[in-house]
């Protein structure tokens, strides 16, 4: 465990700021790819670091801090998506609520054909593709983190790859 992590665990916010500066690019990249939206990614990134601060005490140094933070990020974004997906107990808001969705329907800010094609994947397929093919997680890990069956993870990956090939004309 590095001295910076240890000092942050002892409540040193300056040390935690240094950890933020060292890792924000990695966390933001993951949040941006998983959410497909820069505004959401910024919110997720802030939530991840607040959660990391709250949970620093549980980090024992068994893995690298970056690995711990990476997994925390995945869990945080997927949990937020699950929460946002629960709509059974919701108020009906004004009919023109969709104005917000129209306002945020901007082109994906990521560069590159593959990045843009990933950004256009359906959320479930996008998450599995990113976690498996970009981040290197196995299906059993993805299933645990996402709360889906391992078979669903494999099916989503197959779907994502097929959609990407179609989108890229390959």
């Amino acid at each position, binding site marked *: 465990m590095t001295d910076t992590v240890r000092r942050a*665990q002892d*409540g040193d*916010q300056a040390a*935690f*700021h240094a950890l*933020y500066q060292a890792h*924000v*690019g*990695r966390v*933001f*990249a993951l949040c*941006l790819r998983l959410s497909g*939206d*820069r*505004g*959401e*990614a*910024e*919110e997720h*990134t*802030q*939530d991840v*670091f*607040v959660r990391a*601060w*709250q*949970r*620093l*005490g*549980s980090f024992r140094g068994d893995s690298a801090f970056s690995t711990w933070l990476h997994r925390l990020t995945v869990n945080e974004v997927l949990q937020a998506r699950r*929460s*946002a997906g*629960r709509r059974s*107990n*919701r*108020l009906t*808001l*004004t009919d*023109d*609520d969709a*104005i*917000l*969705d129209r*306002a*945020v329907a*901007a082109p994906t800010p*990521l560069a*590159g054909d*593959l*990045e843009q094609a990933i950004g256009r994947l359906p959320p479930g397929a996008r998450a599995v*593709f990113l976690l498996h*093919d*970009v981040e290197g997680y196995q299906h059993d890990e993805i299933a645990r983190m996402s709360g889906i069956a391992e078979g669903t993870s*494999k099916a989503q*990956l*197959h779907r994502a*790859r097929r959609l990407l*090939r179609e989108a*890229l004309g*390959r």
Partner: protein
Amino acid sequence: MNNHTDILPLLDDYADGGLDPAARARVEAHLASCAACRAEVAALAAILAEARALPRTIEPGRDLWPGIAPRLAARPARRLPWLQLAAALALFAGGFAAARLGQKDGPPTRLATLQAEYTAASTELAHRLAGGSTGLAPETRRVVDRNLEIIDQAIREAEAALAGDPANGALEQMLVARYEQRLELLRRATAAGRQES
């Protein structure tokens, strides 16, 4: 039989190196004689190589720390969880949750955790909205304000009901849903403001 239909479902696992030796041999025997499947595997391999080569870091367009620092408690939660939680809850208007927490020895309930998160995030986002710094168009802002009123009224009603019936799980679930809905609306509003400005 190693026909096209049998082999196609195996190509994903083949590309991942996840097939057992027998299945792998079947696929390779088929690939030797099927140009379409060879093209399929080559295209897949190219996408996977490109995916693995994607940059691991992307810097956000602005400094996100100002939205983080005010939300950090004086200490991470491991040493004084109840004191810290109580401080967060003190910011929240409803006093019933603190009373409920005081009766329990276990970990914070989902309601208590959400209330603390709700207080911090909601305050920050509402402050941005109230300050007029969101860049929302007047029509969008009008819709947001009206929907916030609807949700706030529902939150007040749920809190009042739960205060009278603290053990009612359905009421608690309803209140949690309202918190989440308010946070989501504020997040969407600030995201929309960034696009409209």
